[in-house]
């Protein structure tokens, strides 16, 4: 695989990074990212990130949990191992509610966590941002913009100038 290259710039405040992201998006960049120690409100809009699709993944998992859980109880209580217990009918659906509910929640949670990791392409330990100490403060108190060299708009000098103009500091190329 070809080396991945990023041009990164550092910013000090949430306001600066929102302005910088907006400038990049307006200039037609698409393959760029912001790296912040916490989610900055309004940054997603400035970067024009579409809404997360995670909800649909969770819904699908939840449905599997609900239908699968109910089916498991119905099948095992009526077909696989029919027993009269406490004089109740084999198919006592009222009693199946708690387990159906628990399995719905369980599968939804799996969907939420593993779906989130899937959408984010994580775990991934070999990213340029992780390869140098240059951006180590991205999880502390600094805010970074990274522009991928693959972006059609990317031009090392012009992109660098743009980042400088919006107040970016310590601009550098990172590779992995």
């Amino acid at each position, binding site marked *: 695989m070809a080396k991945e290259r990023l041009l990164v710039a550092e910013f000090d405040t*949430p306001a600066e990074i929102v302005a910088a992201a907006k400038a990049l998006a307006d200039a037609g960049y698409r393959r760029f990212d912001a790296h912040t120690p*916490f989610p900055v409100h309004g940054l997603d809009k400035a970067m024009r990130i579409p809404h997360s699709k995670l909800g649909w993944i969770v819904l699908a998992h939840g449905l599997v949990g609900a239908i699968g859980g109910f089916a498991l109880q119905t099948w095992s209580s009526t077909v696989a191992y029919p027993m009269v217990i406490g004089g109740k009918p084999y198919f006592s659906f009222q009693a199946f509610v708690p387990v159906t509910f628990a399995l719905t929640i369980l599968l939804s949670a799996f969907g939420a966590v593993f779906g989130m990791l899937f959408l984010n392409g994580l775990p991934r330990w070999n990213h340029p941002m992780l390869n140098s100490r240059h951006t180590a403060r991205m999880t502390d108190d600094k805010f970074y913009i990274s522009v991928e060299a693959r972006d059609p708009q990317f031009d090392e000098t012009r992109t660098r100038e743009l980042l400088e103009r919006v107040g970016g500091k310590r601009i550098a190329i990172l590779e992995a």
Partner: protein
Amino acid sequence: MSAPSIATTKIPIPPTPPDEKLVTGGLTFSDVTNLVSQVTEQKTPRNWYLAFAFSLALLGVFGVSVLWLLWEGTGVWGLQQPVGWAWDITNFVFWVGIGHAGTLISAILFLFRQKWRTSVNRAAEAMTIFAVICALMFPGLHVGRIWMAYYLFPLPNQMGMWPNFRSPLLWDVFAVGTYFTVSLLFWYVGLVPDLATLRDRAKTRTRALVYGLLSLGWRGSMRHWINYEKAYLILAGISTPLVLSVHTIVSFDFATSVIPGWHTTIFPPYFVAGAIFSGFAMVVSLMVITRQVFGFKDLVTLDHLEKMNKIILLTGTMVGYAYAMEFFIAWYSGSLYERYAFINRAFGPYAWAYWTMITCNVISPQFFWFRKFRRSIPVMFVLSIVVNIGMWFERFVIIVTSLHRDYLPGSWGYFMPTIWDIGLFVGSFGLFFTLFVLFLRFLPVIAVSEVKGVMPEADPHHHAHEEVEEKAPLRTAEAS
């Protein structure tokens, strides 16, 4: 809250409502990072070893009690006819209940946008997970033949047998199992950005490797945060009904039976309120110690503790209402057995346990009507422990007093615990403390990225006042 320190600057700063001052002492983002991270980075303090040794000793008591139980069987406990279910299930309900506050803080308060939760949610969620681990020990062990514990799960087997899905005990397996798994996932998702912080600060190869692996390559990407925040919101959304359902289902263990004293419809809400009550008390006990030891007084402020004490007052009063209502319904039902069960509970051989429960759970939280007591560290620490003693007694009273006098006087008895009952219960605290002490040493005790997110500086519109801030670093000093 005094204004003079602001007055020295020229540009007026909009007053911050007291509720929004979640971080005091004028801390910056990197102060927050340092404060929390250094706990895991500094040389292990001597007191930590003391705490760890004490916890391990208690864990040893647990280990011996478990081994002896497995060797001899459940006969080593004080179980007899008619009380065939006593401390094991009491301890189970006690520990599950404690867990509930963690989920309440992490999920329900998140949905209600109670931003103060960010400084206590990590520790509270850890407490949840460790408490549920302790809880799971008891049903796991009291099956007697522990090597048959897989019967609890719907696993295809050579006998063609399936569990009875109409039994509330099986509902418990699913409810508590799901609760544990979801709590663990929720906790881990919250930890990922903070583990990345520890990774980026790592000074040694081992730390970089371990925290690097655990943080899954998190790089604070905004494109990731979008999905992350969605996942967090969904987890909070599904944990909310889950936490309410777990203790509901635990209460079904009793409520769906026909034992007078158990067969009551008030049990689900009453158990949930009691669970939150005891859980918050445990959070207060733990946070009072943690903030003292690690110097988190600007992150876990008196305001946070006061809010939790208010919840203790509220839920304690709900529990008191439930006790009264149980009596009313016992009388109103006209059922002789029901009436007898409750009169016997309050004035029979276990009256001492009943009134201990009332004193601890109904009377003691009433001190929190007064602001002075709500904000006094010694008072809240003592009361939080008293509340948990009371909540253990509540479960004991419900379980044992309802069983010890069967319908015929010939089947009456008095339950006495043996040394092994006591060893297992006391030892379970060893398990809990060992896990908690390890957590305090190796993981970020406070949700660093979430705390930063609720600081006023995190708002992009905050930049207008930034200049002022730099010139007047005392801005927040007014609060100290």
